[in-house]
């Protein structure tokens, strides 16, 4: 133990929080093993709680897919897409569920890990970032039925599949931004937790999970396109070959919104951080 002491000692300055310091990148790099371990903790506890968690995670999108496929078949409704409807709706559902789960867990993470925050110093944003990463595992598992369906329907994959990681990253960034924003403001006022769950609930219906934006014309289509998650969903599907072309501009709009959401989230977090341990 003593030989390690030769390291030069760092000096930490403790001062009142005045200036806005959005992100101390060096500090986060130093604590990367904590992020890794926290993600592992999340994943392990998710799967240890229920042995069938893997299956339960699949049951939700699969059953919704089945119900809507039957509805569509029985009613003869149009969705505005040429792709097989089960693939269309399932692929939309899994990325949507990833977004809502990650966002909601991120938004409630500060309260959930309040015990740690009050007792140990570490860069605080690790906590809301963990669910965004850990939920990727569930998304990955949900890909298995999707691949099976794609093979069954003979869906062709083009080069756009290479954009898939970027689309998922953009989705993760948006959930991190929204999550951190709501985690911060709900510390001051818990009503925002309800607001977020309402927004995510409505979002399921307006984010092109069940239908394609192609169904709409004129101002309504524009309104639909303002929702960045609709862009994410359509881009996600395009990567997997279930819609025709990758909506590049629309997706770049979503990237822009995601980046701004992170910035807004950081600003909100900054204003709450100085009183974080006192408020929890």
């Amino acid at each position, binding site marked *: *133990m*003593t030989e*390690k*002491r030769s390291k030069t*000692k*760092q*000096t*930490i*300055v*403790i*001062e*009142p*929080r005045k200036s806005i310091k959005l992100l101390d990148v060096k500090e986060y790099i*130093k*604590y990367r*093993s*904590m992020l*890794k*371990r*926290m993600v*592992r*903790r999340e994943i*392990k*506890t998710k799967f*240890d*709680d229920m042995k069938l968690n893997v299956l339960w995670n699949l049951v939700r999108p699969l059953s919704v897919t089945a119900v809507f496929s039957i509805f569509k078949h029985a009613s003869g409704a149009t969705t505005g897409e040429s792709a097989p409807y089960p693939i269309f709706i399932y692929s939309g559902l899994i990325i949507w569920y990833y977004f809502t789960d990650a966002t909601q867990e991120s938004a409630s993470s500060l309260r959930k*890990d309040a*015990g*740690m*925050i*009050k*007792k*140990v*110093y*570490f860069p605080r944003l690790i906590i809301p970032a963990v669910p965004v990463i850990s939920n990727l595992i569930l998304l990955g598992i949900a890909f298995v039925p999707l691949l099976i369906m794609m093979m069954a329907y003979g869906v062709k994959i083009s080069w756009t599949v290479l954009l898939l990681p970027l689309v998922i990253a953009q989705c993760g960034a948006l959930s991190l931004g929204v999550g951190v924003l709501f985690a911060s403001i709900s510390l001051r006022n818990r009503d925002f937790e309800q607001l977020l769950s309402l927004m995510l609930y409505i979002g399921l219906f307006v984010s092109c999970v069940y239908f394609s934006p192609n169904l709409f014309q004129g101002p309504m289509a524009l309104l639909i396109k303002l929702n960045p998650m609709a862009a994410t969903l359509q881009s996600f599907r395009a990567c997997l070959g279930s819609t025709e072309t990758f909506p590049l501009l629309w997706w770049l709009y979503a990237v822009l919104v995601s980046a701004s959401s992170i910035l807004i989230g950081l600003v909100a977090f900054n204003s709450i951080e*100085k*009183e974080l*341990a*006192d408020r929890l």
Partner: protein
Amino acid sequence: MKASYAVQCCDIGKKYRIESKEFWALRKININIEEGERVGIIGRNGAGKSTLLKILSRLVYPTEGRAEITGRVASLLEVGTGFNMELTGRDNIHLNASIHGMEGDEIRSIFQQVVDFSGVGEFIDTPVKHYSSGMYMRLAFAVSAHLDPDILIMDEVLAVGDLSFQKKCLSRVEGLANSGRTIIFVSHSMGDIARFCERVIWIDKGRIKFDGDSLEAISKYEEEVNPKQSVMTNDSIRKGTGNARIVKVHHYGPLASQPEAMRTGESCEIELDYIVYADYERVFDVFACIIFTNDVGKRVFAVPSEVLPVDLTRIGKSGTLTCRIGRLPLVPGSYALTISLLINNQLVDKLEMVSSIKVLDGDFYGTGKLPLKSMGDICVDFDWKVETKLTPVKNELKQGYVDKEDGVGM
């Protein structure tokens, strides 16, 4: 600013606002702690100790002032932060150490030491929800004890686990202290403070009330927290005829510089100032007795003068009765005194539980090993020896002996 300071606080203040009322939990805190110093922080509940600790641990921001901390800090405000019941001991060690800012390689390098220290052994890959609470605490403390900090900030975390583990923890912290680590220790246990810290900072109402030698600080603090009822003004709680009254009680330890510090195994004196009001024609006998009662109200021992061949009859009109105890057998703690005075076989004054004395750690046995409170209230002189028998022990006696290890309580 000198480089050898581990902690420097300059005018640190922390203001809280509770329902639009503002108050300063800390104000104008100036502390310089040198590398390798062991500093205790004492004060009543709500005095601001925890706030100071939280600021130094970077959990809350100060409202004003500035502090600099040089070196790696491990802040043990609780042990086992982030421990998760579903995870195995192994995962929890990694998780807890990483929360304290250790990197992967560092954690791997201390891993085996942590496992050995905790004594969980083969259960390291069992989820901690199956551990007994003792095992859990041992593992949690083991991680904390191996964080390898330059500065260790502790908030009464020593009181974990069973006795043997507590001793292990204490010696581990002592080891850290002796290898030049700076230690900042908040505790309500004056015994622990006296044992660990050479310097004590007493915080009262958000300000530093005293900063200096630990024994001096402790005795001043004790005096304020448990004010000595030296002068008895309320006669209603007295018994006896009142022909004479004890008006003041003093007690002294062995050191003139710290008269209030009484220590286990060292000499002490208790003085009773008295005034005789009645006019005795003849005083043919005088007895005085002091009974020591511990903090749960149990009588520990007494020092009755009547068992000794002393003559106290020449009391006059006023004066002082002094009782000297050669080697105080009390283990560290607080004790109340019950004092009675008899003149001519008549109880003239009795004071129940009047004066509280504080006994600090002392080396009763002269071996450097301090008596533990859990072993009872008093220490006695004793000796052990062994005599080997020349005839061999019968077999059945040997078999009757079972080597009893510490159970793991699964």
